[in-house]
């Protein structure tokens, strides 16, 4: 690991990676450190993946303003620059009772105040034209056509790779253990070595308060709020066209039903304050709450065809309920980007824009790097190609002729590409997030041994060193006793 940098970003979630990418536009030396063996293992890996339109966000709060701006930036720039799935499906907030109508009106007004375009309240058959399988007792719905969905994994990976292409350094398994404030610079001690930085950006998500504590800042505390989900098989034949919300109450935004960018249906999240920032466990009660809630808007949902359940933690600052994005006045050169709960993903481009502004102020001006290239292209997607395109791909590279994951039709070529990118994949789950083997209905039962094999070969490590996610999550223990003996013989040998 290098020992000096201009700007050190802590955290490889969407916030940190977006900041790295936006800062790599300038003539600066950028370094990002992430404690896990892969990007995108924190809050960014488990959320609803919505680019909210911005009608629900409080205009008086930072998150309200940044949501709207973030959505705009996704439309204007990000979707064109990065090869990342973004779809503008629109959102519906569905009212089933008369007494909920004033709340819809209120959301409409708030949205208009935030500058959300094309909002309208639809009634009667118009609702069902937008969402045919909605519960039959809907009376009105707020329609927000500028709401979208994004693939958060591909987005984060694209940002990190694009930053790396433009000169940023990304270190994985480089958890920050301590920070020494040396006045002009900060000496950051990581699991991979020490590095001295002029500016430190704290984008450590659920751990942002602990990082801040390292330099003596204790003005905020992160409280994890868990949300659980069910994800359905693509082939489940659940017809959902838009992102469907119930009318929010004071307590909760309610359970969302939404398609994902790959055509699965996702339902969730509930909201539960919990103690530990490590507790991403799903629960019987939580999952039942999610399904019951989702059935209120899309009654045909059941447990049938569920292929995955998971939970994510919102890193909330409870006192303010808002993002905290500022240069610390106690510790010069230390920038907190904390409390990035929902709509953190939708706001991410705007958060990065704001961070660039703060850095500019701290440094006193930024010089653009003339060589900056905003474009990034990820591995090809065999599954989305016509047979003619597939034929061409395998002609160019025979690795695209080997299907590794049957459920999602992922080829060896795509997996190799994911491993060989500038910020390459190192874990089974990282490969799953980037190119999807194991994301389908058999959940890796078929392809996991093959992915383990490829990782072992490409990384030059034995298969029992290959991990699922964290450093400690090894999949295999040791070699069998007598390879390929049949069992009778083995027992005779004992």
């Amino acid at each position, binding site marked *: 690991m290098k020992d000096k940098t201009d700007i050190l970003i802590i955290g490889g979630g969407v916030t940190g990676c977006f900041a790295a990418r936006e800062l790599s536009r300038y003539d600066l030396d950028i370094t990002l450190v992430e404690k896990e063996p892969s990007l995108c293992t924190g809050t960014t890996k488990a959320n609803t993946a919505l680019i909210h339109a911005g009608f629900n966000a409080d205009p008086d709060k930072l998150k309200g303003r940044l949501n709207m701006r973030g959505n705009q930036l996704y439309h204007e720039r990000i979707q064109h620059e990065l090869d990342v799935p973004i779809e503008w499906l629109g959102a519906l907030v569905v009212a089933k009772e008369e007494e909920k109508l004033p709340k819809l009106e209120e959301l409409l007004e708030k949205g208009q105040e935030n500058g959300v375009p094309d909002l309208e309240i639809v009634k009667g058959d118009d609702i069902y034209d937008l969402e045919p399988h909605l519960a039959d007792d809907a009376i009105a719905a707020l329609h927000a056509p500028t709401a979208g969905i994004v693939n958060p994994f591909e987005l984060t990976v694209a940002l990190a790779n694009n930053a790396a292409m433009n000169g940023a350094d990304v270190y994985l398994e480089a958890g920050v253990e301590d920070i020494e404030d040396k006045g002009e610079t900060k000496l950051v001690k990581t699991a991979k070595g020490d590095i001295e930085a002029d500016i430190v950006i704290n984008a450590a998500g659920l751990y942002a308060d602990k990082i801040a504590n390292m330099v003596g800042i204790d003005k905020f505390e992160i409280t994890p709020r868990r949300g659980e989900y069910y994800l359905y098989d693509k082939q489940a034949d659940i017809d959902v066209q838009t992102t469907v919300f119930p009318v929010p109450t004071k307590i909760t935004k309610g359970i969302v039903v939404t398609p994902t960018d790959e055509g699965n249906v996702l339902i969730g999240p509930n909201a539960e304050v919990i103690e530990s920032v490590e507790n991403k466990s799903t629960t019987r009660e939580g999952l039942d709450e999610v399904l019951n809630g989702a059935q209120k808007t899309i009654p045909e949902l059941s447990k049938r065809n569920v292929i995955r359940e998971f939970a994510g933690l919102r890193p909330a600052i409870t006192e303010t309920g808002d993002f905290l994005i500022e240069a610390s006045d106690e510790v010069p050169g230390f920038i907190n980007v904390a409390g990035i709960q929902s709509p953190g993903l939708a706001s991410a481009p705007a958060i990065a824009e704001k961070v660039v502004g703060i850095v500019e102020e701290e440094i006193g001006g930024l010089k653009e790097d003339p060589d900056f290239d905003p474009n990034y292209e990820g591995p090809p997607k065999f599954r989305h190609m016509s047979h003619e395109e597939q034929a061409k791909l395998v002609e160019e590279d025979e690795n695209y002729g080997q299907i590794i994951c049957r459920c999602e039709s992922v080829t060896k070529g795509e997996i190799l590409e994911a491993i060989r990118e500038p910020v390459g994949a190192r874990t089974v789950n990282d490969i799953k997030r980037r190119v999807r083997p194991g994301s389908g209905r058999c959940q890796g*039962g078929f392809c996991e041994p093959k992915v383990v094999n490829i990782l072992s070969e490409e990384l030059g490590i034995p298969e029992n060193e290959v991990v699922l*996610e964290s450093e400690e999550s090894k*999949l295999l223990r040791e070699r069998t006793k007598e390879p*390929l003996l049949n069992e009778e013989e083995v027992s005779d040998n004992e």
Partner: protein
Amino acid sequence: MNKQEYELVVVGGGPAGLAAAQEAYDQGVRDILILERDFELGGILQQCIHNGFGLHYFGEELTGPEYAQQFMENVRERGVDIKLDTMVLEVTPEKDVYAINSDDGMLYIDAEAVILAMGCRERTREAIDIPGTRPAGVYSAGTAQRYVNMEQWIPGEKVVILGSGDIGLIMARRMHLEGAEVEAVLEIMPFSGGLVRNIVQCLDDFDIPLRMQQTVTEIHGKDRLEAVTVAEVDENMQPIPGTEYKIECDTLLLSVGLIPENELSKDAGVKMHDVTGGPIVNEGRETNIEGIFACGNVLHVHDLVDWVTEESLVAGKTAANYLQGGIDKREQEIEVNPGENVGYIVPQKITNDVEDRKLVDLYMRCKKPMEHVTINLYSGDKKLLDKNERRVEPGEMITFPVPEQMISDDMDSLKVDIVKEGE
């Protein structure tokens, strides 16, 4: 694109595909291609290195690979074309087959008939909805079997197995022999879904406890599995509060059922059966799409490979008849319906008029175990045939041969029920 033509394309080179190809050849079809995605033929048998295959068909006990070997040699001797490492991506209702491999690139095969023999896949943790964390160490039993028997890696040291189906039982013994501690095999039902002989040979012989009416209700551990919470269940298979206990373990193997793998079939427009999860077929194993046949685990999950072979010979023969000028149809189609204590019957209908046929085999599963039963075959209210069995179990497929001469032109449906002897 690499375009080819074949009379018969067989998708999947497991025991089903092999037997079907062999029989089609023996009936005179010469232009046959088997497409197999693995690096070798033999299907799931290649990882079943235990004994217990072939008692019915060969009259001796073979290991899985030995059983497969016989059929692999047969198709090779006959000069059937085989493409390995080749994944079939699509079969269209017109019987165009798209497949891909590294050598040929994309293959586009114009086939006159197709036999679907893709086997099945395992149900997952999610399919049975176990909450908790998502650490390393939770595997389906078949995946673990592949790791141990094919890749020669042991996945863990302290093992709990959920589900007492055959794969679960066999993996309990396998892990034990590899030096792992098998803490328990848990079964949610009051009876095991596995073969009786496997319970004896895989668990009893090694003192591995089998705990009935218990299931895993939560998974613990951040990085690697650390423990599972287990609870007793009531008659509706719901966990009984207060009965929970924890078992420390680093590995959970799930043997919670197999699902016929029919994505290709569905895309081809083949109609599926709700209970079997496989295509609806007639007695020749032909689907609703003329010229598309199905056999083996893709059609319904078999416990014994011997029946897979029998069934696939039928499919291969009918496919040959189809290619050689068509199949005569009966005037009236006969539905085959499950009655009391019968889960399903394959075939679901009898539609063909086959000259020299002596028997039509019905394959079925009972819903619950019963002792001293009579299996009755009815046409309307009229009883045609019965046979007595000492014991029936959902885990063991029942075969019921119906003599051809009993099937008459005026029938429109058959029904089978399983009742206590003497009732």
